[in-house]
């Protein structure tokens, strides 16, 4: 099963980068994560932040007229790694159909070799955000 084209391009780009380039590129993604659009503010206020140590990740999905999904995030700037990983996923998957999103393997990022730049434990965030996006996509199919 192939990845959506944009996500595949990002994976291929990272695969060829040095450790320093990976860090710089991740920072670039973190800094370009768009702020949560104002129209989600009300819904966002009703959501419970997760207590204690995890980064509170808030995620919203919208189905477009052509059936593609657009994801929006609210992640605090104190957690740039999670922001960067979420921005990679949004950049790679926004516009994809729910079925395409569900078909993304949980370990799709292995060839990016991000362990060089950020420890493997932090990559849990990647799996977590992707799982969250898949659940959102399922909800959108059912709508």
């Amino acid at each position, binding site marked *: 099963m192939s990845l959506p084209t944009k996500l595949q391009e990002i994976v291929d780009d990272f695969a060829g980068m040095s450790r320093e380039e990976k*860090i*710089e590129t*991740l*920072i670039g993604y*973190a800094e370009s994560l768009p702020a949560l659009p104002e129209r989600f503010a009300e819904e966002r206020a009703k959501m419970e932040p*997760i*207590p*204690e*140590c*995890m980064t509170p990740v808030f995620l919203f999905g919208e189905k477009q007229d052509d059936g593609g999904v657009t994801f929006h995030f609210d992640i605090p700037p*104190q*957690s*740039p*790694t*999670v922001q*960067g990983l979420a921005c990679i996923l949004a950049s790679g998957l926004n516009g994809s159909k729910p079925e395409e999103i569900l078909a993304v393997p949980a370990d799709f990022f292995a060839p990016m070799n991000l362990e060089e*730049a*950020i*420890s*493997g*434990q*932090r990559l*849990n*965030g990647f*799996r*977590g*955000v992707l*799982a969250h996006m898949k659940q959102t996509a399922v909800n959108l199919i059912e709508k």
Partner: protein
Amino acid sequence: MPYAHPEYLVDTEWVANHLTDANVRIIESDEDPLLYPMGHIAGAVQVDWFSTLQHPVRRDFVSKEQFAEMCAKLGIANDTTVVFYGDKSNWFACYALWLFEYYGHKNVKIMNGGRAKWEQEKRPLVRETPSYARTTYSAKDADKSIRAFRDEVLAHSNAKKALVDVRSPKEYSGEMLHMPNYPQEGATRGGHIPAAVSIPWSQAVNEADATFKTTEELVAIYEGKNIKADGDVIAYCRIGERSSLTWFVLKYLLGYPNVKNYDGSWTEWGNLVDAPIEK
């Protein structure tokens, strides 16, 4: 009432005035590894709790020799004053400080408030990574008086001595086996070590600026749960990072003489065959 060992804390102003002090090395230690490259205190070096401080193969810390090599590379001599700061209310700063003490480094300090306070005060952050001339560093043998291992924790629990579980209330009760999205930090069983009392780590810090609470407030929090200076105390969490903050508070802010951090914590205990668990 002052802290028992105020010399273990410096404020942001002190750090701002010692940026070029050759006898001081400032270390940033964060949960999030991108914070340092995105901007850090001028002259500060980065020590990553996972990739720099952990043993590359075993579940353990770097060896004495690896620790000495790390210090030499960072330009830290045996008599350098090392000041730690970081994100998440200095969790990982305390973790790094604890490991420096484990290998016998004297003159370690925490910058009260960490990154959060420095940023709130709009103090400058830079992106340039400094480099320092290599030093000769000799690490001491590991100081096991600040680190608890599982057999000792079992004996401690059986004797009903003071044990502090600093995780969130839902982890203590066993409702939550691991933090969502941290599957590798999970355990097959939930609950807490028998005799442990629940005092979440975050109670020791002020939410507004990540500084430590006052002596009076800390005394009320810990003595209120019967964690007192006259006994042996062991603190634990999930992987030993949050509890190193509690260890720092008990040992240096309140001056308890015998405090250990059980770094095996719940990821060891909750997977250990035959270990007693209370729910």
